[in-house]
């Protein structure tokens, strides 16, 4: 675990701390030796006191498209604090790699992580507590967004991008069949029935067993919050009334053949999105980019609207996707890393770069009205105010908190719902199974779970 002493450590305050830590290590050495093969879990919870302008070489694992262009801006402005981007993997795979690298003592200073992956990083001692930075940047984000990086009153990442959910529908086909855009989920069900009557080979939408994050977003919209941590004890409510309502709503329609039950992101789905087999897609703000990839021939035919509502009086939406930047708990360049993370996610120039080069939808509220968002996405020339509409919808996103076993819960979701769709069984029961599986796993791992 010993790392070469970087110039930053020469700074007096830090040098003293290092010395004290060394002393502490010497005293507790026998105890540590006894446990040397186990994970090194001593995480430094003291806030960064280093010099944010100290020279440093920062490594950054991320998968954001063209982020190099944004990092270049930083590197030109901060020649002594060079950030090096490394594309190790995406999403979940990157988290697995980061945890492995953490065990080996060479994780990157800066970690790009999806919101639901943060608890896994925290409980493995990988992500640093950024509460000291939080006070400075919190006001740049909505409360809903901030909830995504807050755990037990502490902050472990700074939001980079968000995916507030919104619905895309085929304007041309809706006109052709004389359909109304559904404002509530009841309308949505009625419209789904009309579609089946008017075009027996087409469906309003599909329920996907392959996208647990999508289902979590739908549940979030209905008011669910699956995980709450109170003083170290977890309360798991995956099968609460809101989630069951959502599951049973979709389950009834899928089992009656009114909605499709085929997974998204397959060649079959691509075809269904191109040829009009599916008329609508409850998705997120980044959905326009996906449409461009899977159904380029439908350019200009889609329109984006708020999600159908459970309660038309209080519009709400959920998040599907989005990510934050975390800092490695053992990074020797804590202060410069914090400086970079703050710049990347709140500086107008950085946000503008990420929007125009990376195509992300920024988490910072200032970024959501950035000049680079004045033009609609390529697929939506018929909706020039796309991003203005999106910013309005974004304000209604609820926020959600995640557990350290989201990965296990998600892989269970796929298996359980795939089975429910095939056997045409009750989706409410599937949600119960998901709850049981998730709780059993948390308990197995040794977490305190309130029953």
């Amino acid at each position, binding site marked *: 675990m010993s790392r070469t002493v970087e110039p930053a450590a020469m700074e007096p305050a830090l040098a003293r701390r290092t010395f004290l830590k060394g002393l502490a290590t010497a005293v507790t050495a026998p105890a540590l030796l006894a446990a040397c093969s186990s994970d090194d879990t001593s995480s430094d919870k003291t806030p960064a006191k280093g010099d944010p302008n100290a020279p440093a070489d920062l490594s950054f694992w991320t998968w954001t498209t063209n982020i190099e262009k944004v990092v270049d801006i930083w590197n030109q402005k901060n020649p002594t604090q060079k950030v090096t981007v490394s594309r190790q993997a995406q999403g979940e*795979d990157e988290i697995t790699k980061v945890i492995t690298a953490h065990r080996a003592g060479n994780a990157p200073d800066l970690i790009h992580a999806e919101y639901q992956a943060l608890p*896994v990083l925290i409980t*493995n001692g990988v992500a640093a507590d950024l509460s000291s930075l939080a006070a400075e940047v919190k006001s740049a984000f909505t409360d809903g967004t901030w909830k995504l990086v807050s755990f037990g009153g502490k902050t472990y990442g700074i939001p980079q991008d968000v995916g507030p959910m919104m619905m895309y529908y085929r304007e041309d086909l809706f006109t052709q069949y004389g359909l109304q855009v559904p404002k509530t989920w009841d309308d949505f069900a009625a419209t789904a029935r009309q579609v089946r009557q008017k075009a027996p080979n087409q469906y309003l939408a599909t329920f996907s067993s*392959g996208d647990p994050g999508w289902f979590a977003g739908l549940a979030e919209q209905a008011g669910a919050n699956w995980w709450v941590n109170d003083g170290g004890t977890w309360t798991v409510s995956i099968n609460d009334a809101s989630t069951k309502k959502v599951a049973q709503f979709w389950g009834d329609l899928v089992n009656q053949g009114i909605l499709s039950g085929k997974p998204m992101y397959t*060649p079959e789905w691509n075809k269904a999105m191109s040829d009009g087999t599916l008329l609508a897609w409850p998705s997120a703000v980044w959905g326009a980019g996906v449409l461009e990839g899977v159904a380029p021939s439908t350019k200009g035919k889609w329109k984006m609207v708020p999600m159908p509502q459970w309660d038309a009086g209080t519009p709400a939406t959920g998040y599907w996707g989005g990510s934050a930047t975390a800092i490695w708990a053992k990074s020797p360049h804590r202060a410069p890393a914090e400086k970079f993370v703050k710049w990347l996610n709140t500086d107008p120039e950085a946000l503008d770069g990420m929007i125009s080069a990376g195509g992300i939808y920024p988490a910072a509220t200032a970024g959501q009205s950035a000049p680079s968002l004045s033009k609609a996405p390529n697929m939506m020339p018929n909706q020039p105010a796309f991003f203005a509409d999106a910013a309005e919808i974004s304000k209604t996103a609820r926020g959600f908190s995640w557990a350290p*076993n989201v990965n296990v819960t998600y892989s269970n979701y796929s298996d359980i719902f795939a089975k429910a769709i095939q056997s045409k069984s009750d989706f409410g029961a599937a949600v119960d199974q998901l709850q049981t599986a998730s709780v059993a796993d948390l308990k197995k791992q040794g977490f305190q779970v309130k029953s």
Partner: protein
Amino acid sequence: MRRTSAPYVFVAPAVILLAIFLLVPIGYTVWLSLRASRVTGDGLGLRHEVFVAFDNYKSVLTAPDYVHGLLRMLGYGAIVVPVMLGLALSFALLLDVPRVRLTRFSRISIFLPYAVPGVIASLLWGFLYLPGVSPIRDAASALSLPVPDLLSPNTVLFSVANIGIWGGVGFNMIVLYTAVRGIPQELYDAARVDGASEVQIALRVKLPLITPALVMAGVFAIIATLQVYNEPATLAPLSDSISSSWVPLMAIYRDAFVNNDIYSAAAASVVLALGTLVVSAAALRVLQKRAFGLDR
């Protein structure tokens, strides 16, 4: 002194390589399989690695998904091994019949699918199977035949097995064909003098003489069955019929790299490796007597 050390020097490279790249990793896997990550502390808690003895083995052997995966894998093997070897043997014998035309062309076209990587083969077949884009279904409905759902829960095992067979027949055919070509011509002459037909020559002369090659191909096919992963893992995201633990290797991958539980994955790997060892040893023992009995 020098005389006695010489053998050790000669075997040292092999032993050292074996130790570094085989024994140490196996030992480490066994070590990991006896450990687990458990959470302690307040707040969200922190994960620690602890010793749990045989807990992982207990949960692997009692977990329904591992057991079902194991059964499914056996079912897959029961389809793939006989069908693949049967086809390979038939092709090898047919191609060796005198006066058969286009042997070179047939041999290459039967062999070609083996050159297609498993993942790509699975993607190709995935497109053929997927209801929305399947030309097989289009053809069936155009001919007003019953339209098959090739990825339904009842058919998916056969669909996956089909990919394995498609990819494996060519290789096994070449192995058996080479063995057939190695048989001395005089034996055929003798058989013909005795009045044997081509069918009789194939079944009574060629088949017994290539049995050792058939046994070898069989053992390899069984081992390949235990390692089946590419085909179902590639098809899994396309279909609701293939779960994340459809075969044991998929469950191991999920535990290690999706669920971040490398310890359960290690235990399952040890179980699978031991199973492979036992099955291959048993298959060899049973078949060896018949195949190589004359050589002893």
